[in-house]
């Protein structure tokens, strides 16, 4: 672990260093996590045969639902983050963290470079419940960290158990606008939609001071109306007076310990990238083989921050590899309902009822 923390703290690493640590973590996880060991053995991969981080079997995110992916007994883990369970209803994926030192270092180091734009602290408005309300949400923890480590005095949450605190937000935005100092809003994409709808009802628009930034994450997940992403950023820009280039989207997953960011959303789709301790591949979902550059595939991430679960996960997100990162094209919708055949979700619902 000290080695891992030091690795993250470095200013950058080459392929060989990344590979060495990835293989070391793979061997560790293979040895101490029986569920993962079986998973690898089904694929004929062991630390003896795997020579590159690219060959580490990628665990589908459903594995976090069906298997206990932890190297230490879960009752010794300080924290478990759970998925919101949007795809399989009541079954939640669980990501066990023995302690949060690595997660927190990964988050803060990356957040500082990708969001803070040179500032030590910035006033923040958080559009998400706090950690007390959602102790198993990795996003709640992420935002709590952001607030604690990077929030200037006056930073606060604007969601409580009764929902979005519109009046308080209006006051905060008005005073930020008057202060001339940069302001930031961070939260779930759907919270921004709710906020923008509420402001539109009141006929309110803001022109936040230069240097203000917005951070949205997670998409709409059926929590708000679905918006076209271009319209979403256009409306963000016009509602808050923040240029689209300062509207940052964070791409994170409960199953990871590290986040990806873009450099603003002036153009869509924006290029997402992560820090030196995470690497991504775009693969064919069936064979796991990387697809030719420029072709669509499913994203697989190798996150060295995942020292206790599994370094390498196979997502359900469609991406394209590009210079400097990847384009995130949304979720693979599964089999589109075709003919008079099936709509899987309908049947799953029926089977659960």
């Amino acid at each position, binding site marked *: 672990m000290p080695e891992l923390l030091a690795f993250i703290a470095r200013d950058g690493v080459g392929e060989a260093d990344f590979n060495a640590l990835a293989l070391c973590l793979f061997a560790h996880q293979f040895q101490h996590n029986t*569920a993962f060991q*079986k*998973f690898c053995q*089904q694929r004929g991969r062991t630390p003896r045969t795997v020579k590159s981080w690219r060959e580490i079997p990628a665990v*589908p995110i*459903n*594995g976090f639902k*069906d*298997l206990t992916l932890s190297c230490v007994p879960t009752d010794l883990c300080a924290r478990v983050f759970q998925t919101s369970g949007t795809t399989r209803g009541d079954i939640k994926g669980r990501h066990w963290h023995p302690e949060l030192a690595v997660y927190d270092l990964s988050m803060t180091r990356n957040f500082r470079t990708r969001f803070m734009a040179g500032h030590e602290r910035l006033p923040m408005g958080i559009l998400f419940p706090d950690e007390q309300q959602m102790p198993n949400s990795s996003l709640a923890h992420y935002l709590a960290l952001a607030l604690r480590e990077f929030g200037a005095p006056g930073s606060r949450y604007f969601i409580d158990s009764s929902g979005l605190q519109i009046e308080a937000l209006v006051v905060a935005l008005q005073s930020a606008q008057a202060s001339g100092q940069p302001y930031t809003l961070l939260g779930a994409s759907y919270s921004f939609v709710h906020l923008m709808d509420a402001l539109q009802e009141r006929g309110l628009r803001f022109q936040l001071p230069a240097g203000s930034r917005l951070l949205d994450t997670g998409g709409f997940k059926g929590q708000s109306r679905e918006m076209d992403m271009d319209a979403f950023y256009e409306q963000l820009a016009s509602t808050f007076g923040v240029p689209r280039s300062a509207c940052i989207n964070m791409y994170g997953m409960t199953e990871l310990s590290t986040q990806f960011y873009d450099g603003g959303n002036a153009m869509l789709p924006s290029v997402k990238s992560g820090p030196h301790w995470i690497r991504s591949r775009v693969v*064919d*979902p*069936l*064979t*796991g083989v990387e697809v030719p550059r420029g072709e*669509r*595939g*499913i994203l697989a991430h190798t996150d060295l921050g995942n020292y206790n679960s599994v370094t390498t996960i*196979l997502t*359900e997100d*469609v991406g394209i590899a590009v210079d400097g990162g990847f384009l995130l094209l949304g979720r*693979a*919708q*599964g*089999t*589109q*309902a*075709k*003919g*008079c*055949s*099936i*709509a*899987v979700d*309908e*049947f*799953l619902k*029926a*089977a659960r009822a």
Partner: protein
Amino acid sequence: MTKIQAAHLPGLDLQAVPWQTLTFGEGVQRVDVSVPQLTPEQLQALARHVRTQGGAQIRALSLTQIITAIDRAIARLLDAQDAYRQQLDRLLPLITGFDAEMVRLGLNAYLKTFRAPQLQRFVAEDFANPKLLDEFQPRAKGGMARALGPELLVHVWAGNVPGLPLWSLVCGLLVKAPAVGKTASAEPLFAAHFARLLAEVEPRLADALAIVWFKGGDTESERALYAEADTVLAYGGNETLAALRQQLPVTTRFLPHGHKLSVGLVSAAALDAQHLPAVARAAALDVVRYEQQGCYSPHTYYVARGGRVSPREFALALAGELSALQHRFARRALSLEEAASVAGWRQGQELKGQDGSVELVGDAGAPWAVAYADRAGPLLPCALNRTVQVQAVAALDETLPLLAVQRDFLQTVGVAASPEELHALAEGLGRAGATRICALGQMTAPEAGWHHDGRFSLLDLVRVVEIEASAEAAAEPYARYRD
């Protein structure tokens, strides 16, 4: 590359119609299908033209004349030398991605169920006296009755099983309904082709059918079209159908066909060395045909223990047949979404398999996969594209509660069992939601005149007008020749 138009727009000024291109495949395999992008006003004008002109045309023909016209069109399509058929044989595989030979054979089997004798049988299924569709007929109880079709029938098709629209199109024609059909983006060609061909073989039906396209969820177009219809027959998922129903006036008759799920049952009686190859081959063919995209396609085979051949051996034999059929009917290239769905299903089976309860046959590179489970569970869908579950049961009646979980979705049950078992099971299968029980190997080829989803396909479309005996009796005193 091929360019083709897919629409039939009688009475519309074609110069004023904007077109949009739907592209299928790439390179030399590419097909650009032009579909009309009608304005709501054009849609409305088209629907009104079909209702008035087309309605007058089709009502002027007798049922026999209509059957003859359909039969002539079908005869053309069954003729391998016919230009229409050749175009379908060439383009449908490119548009849907299905194996060309599979499409050709599937179309032949399907079209044969629409020839004149089959159509007559089809009508006879629903009408003891088919002349009810032509004129008032005396009723045994007294009085007279006549069956009238819709003034304007609108079809909303889904999906990419080639030829699917023909089923409801023919139902509409048999009850003399002028109709506007909206094709699905996945296969916009067949319906338009058929409508054009029908107009060619029977010009007196030239205005009775229109085939259009617009994007699903285009509520303005939907509203313009549905407002003109008195009956709407739609295929799609429950969400789509619910949204569609919302748009219809309560007085419009709505005939929804939601997504369905089908299943196969194999009895111990069919599991010996003599029968196994044929049963496994039939089961594999039902999986391969149209890549399980049909409502009648099997997702799971429940297989009984106690035969000379075990359920696991059946699963391996099925895998063998799937592997062999790949040479005859190659699986189409999967889209990324389809591949992700298959991968997700495989991963799910593998994860379940960690405790040894599921065995996945067929590696990730194979164009098929069989998941064998020693313990049967409730019926769940597979991932389509030649992925299928085989689950062992002690006896076939054990499956009834497992199937009933999907009561709202269950459709076809393919059965390989002894006569006694077949009849003993049928009642329970019906109560579990099944509407069609057929032989393995026939799951994707319903017989002529089947009751789709358990409905009376023609009766559902008509309205019966009765002259009661009292009206006849009351008229007598006003006759010129009264005594």
